[in-house]
């Protein structure tokens, strides 16, 4: 167990270093680093100052060392647009993205599980077939286009919900959240639903498959034979067993939600990390781009590490296989 965790942590560190080297080399070696790190309007004095502070007269391995040391100190340069440290700006945008991802995860469970159970219990009903076709659409529809159409219908045509921004926020533990105010909730609904589209389809399919498999098992027959009510059989006996794959897959998909929030945030002008990186790519705000890349890679390495370790605890085969290979 310990050996497995140590190996996984070492692997994560290697991935982090490889990624930092790739980001560093694409910024500093392939392109012109001065042009990359200084805005176009900067004068010669500013350029000289940057060349000196970045140590560009030194060999590349010293430069890379400096980059890594600065990154560890949390110094990834100042944003051209905001004039503040890039890292700070990104960290300030993080809660909005995480809130959106969590709410959409919640939505996909609340919508997906009942529909999936229904489709699994009555596979021949027309309504179940509609649900299943809908889930195919959920996989195939491009998220951004669905988001546009949601704005079109609910914001422009019907005028029910706002289409941009985050609305009123309430501060809890120093973090601004939208879901506690009515205005914030109305702003949150469409983006979260949009982001939940893919995972809802996934949950429907997993739940349906689980239910279809479980209804013929002995423990369900036994529960029915005991004379338990239909509701209890479904809600307790069935649910417990189909939740395992659903929870596992949703845990794995959380990272994907954070990545895909880039799209949803751009469509709905949600002020999170994703919108920030797209805006920064458009305005060539390179320090922000570099900082975002390093942070997102870090976040993903951590997520993957946690998932792997949890898996090895839940399923001993994973770690045994890995140690033997």
């Amino acid at each position: 167990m310990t050996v497995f965790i140590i190996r996984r942590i070492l692997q994560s560190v290697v991935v982090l270093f490889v990624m930092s080297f790739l980001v560093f080399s694409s910024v500093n070696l392939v392109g012109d680093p001065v042009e990359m790190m200084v805005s176009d309007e900067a004068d010669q004095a500013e350029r000289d100052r940057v060349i000196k502070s970045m140590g560009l007269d030194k060999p590349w391995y010293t430069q890379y060392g400096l980059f890594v040391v600065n990154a560890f100190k949390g110094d990834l340069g100042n944003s051209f647009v905001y004039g503040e440290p890039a890292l700070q700006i990104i960290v300030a945008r993080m809660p909005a993205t995480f809130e959106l991802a969590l709410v959409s995860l919640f939505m996909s469970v609340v919508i997906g599980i009942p529909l999936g159970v229904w489709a699994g219990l009555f596979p021949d009903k027309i309504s179940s077939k509609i649900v299943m076709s809908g889930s195919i659409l959920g996989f195939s529809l491009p998220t951004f286009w669905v988001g546009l159409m949601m704005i079109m219908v609910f914001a422009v045509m019907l005028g029910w919900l706002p289409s941009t921004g985050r609305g009123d926020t309430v501060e809890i533990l120093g973090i601004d959240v939208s879901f506690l105010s009515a205005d914030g909730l109305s702003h949150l609904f469409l983006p979260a639903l949009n982001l939940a589209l893919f995972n809802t389809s996934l949950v429907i399919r997993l739940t349906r498959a689980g239910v279809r498999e479980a209804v013929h098992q002995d423990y369900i027959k036994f529960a029915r034979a005991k004379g338990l009510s239909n509701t209890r059989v479904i809600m307790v006996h069935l649910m417990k067993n189909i939740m395992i794959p659903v929870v596992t897959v949703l845990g794995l998909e959380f990272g994907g939600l954070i990545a895909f929030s880039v799209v949803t945030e751009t469509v709905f002008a949600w002020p999170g990390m994703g919108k920030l990186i797209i805006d920064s790519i458009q305005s060539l705000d390179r320090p922000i781009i570099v900082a975002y890349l390093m942070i997102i890679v870090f976040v993903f390495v951590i997520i993957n590490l946690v998932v792997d370790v949890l898996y090895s605890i839940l399923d001993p085969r994973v770690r045994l296989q890995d140690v033997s290979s």
Partner: protein
Amino acid sequence: MSEQMTQTAPPADVQPLAKVQTPLQRFASDYFENKIAAGALFVLIGIIFIAIFAPLISPQDPYDLSSVSVLDSKMPPGSQHFDGWTFYLGTDGAGRDLLSAIFYGLRISLGVGIVSGVIALVIGAAIGMIAAYFGSWVDTLIMRIVDIQLSFPTILVALILLALLGKGVDKIIIALVIVQWAYYARTVRASALVERGKEYIEAATCLALPQKRIMFRHMFPNCLPPLIVVATLQTASAISLEATLSFLGVGLPVSEPSLGLLISNGFDYMLSGRFWISFFPGIALLITIVSINLVGDQLRDVLNPRLQK
């Protein structure tokens, strides 16, 4: 290579009872059993036809400045051009006929999707074959890289690459290839590992055939069926990913208007109620992706020996 496959399938000593079916015919009749999949195939062929012959069948060349007039901009579907012909799907912000723009957009979207898919397939399949054939540390190293890459969502990898590389057709193809190769490598490796243990490979090894020949002439054709399925589904996701990236403004440049860019352009006009500029390119994208996915699903069922009667 496909000819080799078709020749090997029916054993010569079996007497046909009723009528002789070549494997291709059997494959076709299996495929067309599912009416939805059959329809999807025809739709897909139609879309490819439109994409290839876009300049011939479009009512207007949307990127020929002499035939486009700003006076026609943002007209709703069914409006009349001053020459008398109809803008069936309306016009966009620059006065281009939307139907023609979609035809040209399909061309770019499908082109980028297919080209990147083919390159990724070739690279991924070669790497997967190498991993399976040589085994030991080569296999471990390659599959570790594949695992690590697949643990990052595709959109994130593509976004990182494009943020570093910049815009352009070549850049987005590079990004899509890097995103996709790992899926092909994993698929090919899995089926090649199964094939490697079979007798015909042993026989070929005993004949002292060169390794390259065993790998690519003997093993590879037998790894094709799952690869074809993955290639179909991956092409659909590549088209979708390209549209998403172009919509975000990090994919194709404005000079290469794919469906994603058309949708993105329409976004600006949507809040004033002009829905068609975004709506119709999206529908075209949707039909393309759904039909490719349906074809891919049916191919998976038909090519899977376990599901055969």
